[in-house]
């Protein structure tokens, strides 16, 4: 899939963490691409390796992290082969990150204008006054009202939502090629969440950056992402376009994730959940790591690791259920409903192929 449109290519990445108990295999052979201008969502529960993946891209892993294999190619250069000095030149310039908790990710003793201006001073060697002027423009762009008067305020004088806008301003000040957003709305109120997501979408168009959007919340993904990769126990188990993952999921883990997400028309009084807990990555199970929690598990799942099976040109899933010899199973009722909806959507789309708008509209209905 080496593609000229790819801005970032992660190949066969493996990251272990050395601990007293042994090596924790946090990332087990992960590969994905980020295309220019797209938003790729990486979805998974806590401990699935989402954040370690982004840390590895940024070169900011803890000192006990050991990258045993793989490559991360950005603009033809392998980031894993770069020295710390070279990575410093890339961080905040080519690749920037938005952090999860705006309450703790700003320096409490530095004026926010200076904090936003800092990447300019570091990477462009700008003088403070000039950098601050540009920081002011960025503050306006991310929607901080009365920016002129607030540029000399400290973080504690802002609300959580405003602080996250500041964090976004810091990340975008150098117009990075790649923006990593690590659960940027998790720590925010739901009403503020949608504002921040909206802002990110808007700025992505203005700045034309590519986004890796890390989240455990599938609800957030629908409106944000172009493509989705589902991660489980340090591996990507399914990836495809947002429609394919939402309406035609193939991996039982994706089924579980989607079923446990409440929708407006979900009935019944109990919210489905995935039974059990993620496996211990000190000693990952052989075969499919999800087998122990999987109601649809086959015998082979505990013996051999499933390869990626192709569903469409853009949609792949690593589950033995897609093997031609596998027994036909019926996914949970909710998923069947989704698949039916997807089928009618596709028919409708085929009929009105001349116009390109319907797909987006139907996405909104979800």
């Amino acid at each position: 899939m080496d593609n000229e449109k790819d801005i970032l290519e992660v190949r066969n990445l493996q990251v272990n963490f050395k601990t007293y108990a042994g090596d924790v295999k946090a990332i087990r052979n992960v590969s994905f691409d980020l295309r220019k201008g797209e938003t790729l969502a990486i979805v998974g529960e806590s401990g699935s390796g989402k954040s370690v993946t982004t840390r590895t891209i940024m070169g900011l892993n803890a000192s006990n992290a050991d990258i045993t294999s793989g490559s991360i190619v950005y603009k033809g250069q392998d980031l894993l082969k770069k020295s710390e000095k070279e990575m410093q030149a890339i961080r905040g310039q080519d690749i920037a990150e938005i952090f999860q908790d705006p309450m703790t990710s700003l320096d409490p003793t530095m004026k926010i204008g200076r904090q936003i201006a800092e990447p300019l001073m570091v990477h462009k060697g700008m003088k403070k006054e000039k950098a601050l002027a540009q920081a002011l423009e960025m503050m306006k762009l991310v929607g901080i009202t009365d920016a002129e008067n607030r540029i000399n305020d400290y973080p504690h004088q802002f609300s959580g939502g405003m602080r996250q806008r500041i964090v976004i301003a810091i990340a975008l000040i150098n117009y990075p090629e790649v923006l990593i957003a690590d659960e940027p709305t998790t720590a925010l109120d739901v009403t503020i969440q949608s504002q921040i997501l909206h802002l990110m979408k808007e700025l992505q168009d203005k700045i034309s950056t590519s986004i890796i959007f890390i989240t455990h919340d599938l609800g957030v993904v629908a409106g944000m992402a172009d493509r989705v990769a589902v991660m489980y126990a340090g591996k990507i188990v399914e990836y495809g376009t947002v429609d394919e993952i939402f309406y035609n999921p193939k991996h039982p883990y994706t089924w579980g994730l989607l079923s446990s997400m409440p929708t407006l028309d979900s009935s019944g009084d109990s919210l489905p959940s995935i039974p059990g807990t993620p496996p211990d990555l000190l000693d990952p199970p052989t075969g499919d790591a999800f087998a122990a929690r999987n109601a649809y598990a086959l015998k082979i799942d505990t013996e051999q690791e499933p390869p990626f099976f192709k569903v469409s040109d853009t949609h792949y899933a690593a589950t033995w259920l897609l093997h031609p010899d596998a027994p036909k199973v019926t996914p949970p009722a909710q998923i069947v409903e989704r698949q039916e909806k997807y089928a009618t959507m596709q028919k409708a789309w085929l009929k009105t192929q001349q116009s390109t708008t319907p797909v987006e509209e139907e996405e909104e209905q979800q």
Partner: protein
Amino acid sequence: MAKYLAKRIFYLILTLFIVITVTFFLMKLLPGTPLTNQAKLSKSQIALIYQQYGLDKPVWQQYLLYLAGAVKGNFGTSFQFSDQPVSYLLSSRIGPSLQIGLQAMIVGVIVGIIIGAFGAMKQNTWVDTTTTVVSILGISIPSFVLAVLLQYYLGLKLGWFPIAEWGGFIYTVLPTLALGATPLAESARFVRTEMVDVLSSDYIELAKAKGLSRMGVIYHHALRNSLIPLITIVGPLAVNIMTGSMVVENIFSIPGIGEQFVKSVLTNDYPTIMGLTIIYSFMLCVVLLITDILYGIVDPRIRLTGKAN
């Protein structure tokens, strides 16, 4: 700010008043008088001297007289030093004490910050262990023991510095080292702990994600945030230096007020005791006031006045 300062100065005067009152009566409870061991004086002579100094009056009257004098800036005359006014006696001696105290404080805290920061940056390596050992030693060895050790090794054996006496900067080195060990150790320990905490915080991660170099992260973000709690212990450290100086000045024969204090207590030199107590309390109050103002400067979340959120 002006309003805040006025309030603090009022409290400072109130504190001094309470200190004067308590010290005055405590001092009078001490056994003996300034003339206890004067066998050569007859009873009538002693009575005459008592009358001359006002010591024949009831204690509460003496107290009121002292207060009245103190308000006017008259702190009495010393009993032991041929009737020198206390204010003159002390003002001529406070210089060396202040110099050594300030030197010890500045050297101790600055070196302590550097050592502590290094320990935190090299966490769990031999550098870190060394700094921890140094700070434990510095805290647990009393300044007078260190003073004697320094005199013996650096003064006598190596001959680098004069062993005692006063006269020029070279004479201040050993007392400064002896007194500075505690603030050095305390601040090293404090800064290390705090910086280890700060270095694992989210805003340091963000600073790294901005592309700042390791030193840039430390200098622009970690240091300032690690130093805030250090201000809390500056007050107690100042007290430590003041009390430590009494003994250390004696050991190095420095003509300061600490040495004076010890002598005047031993001889029941009431006006000098009172004068010194007032000076010590005043210095401590000022240190605490400076500490509070520093807090506001270093930490914007604790600004004294101005717009609050």
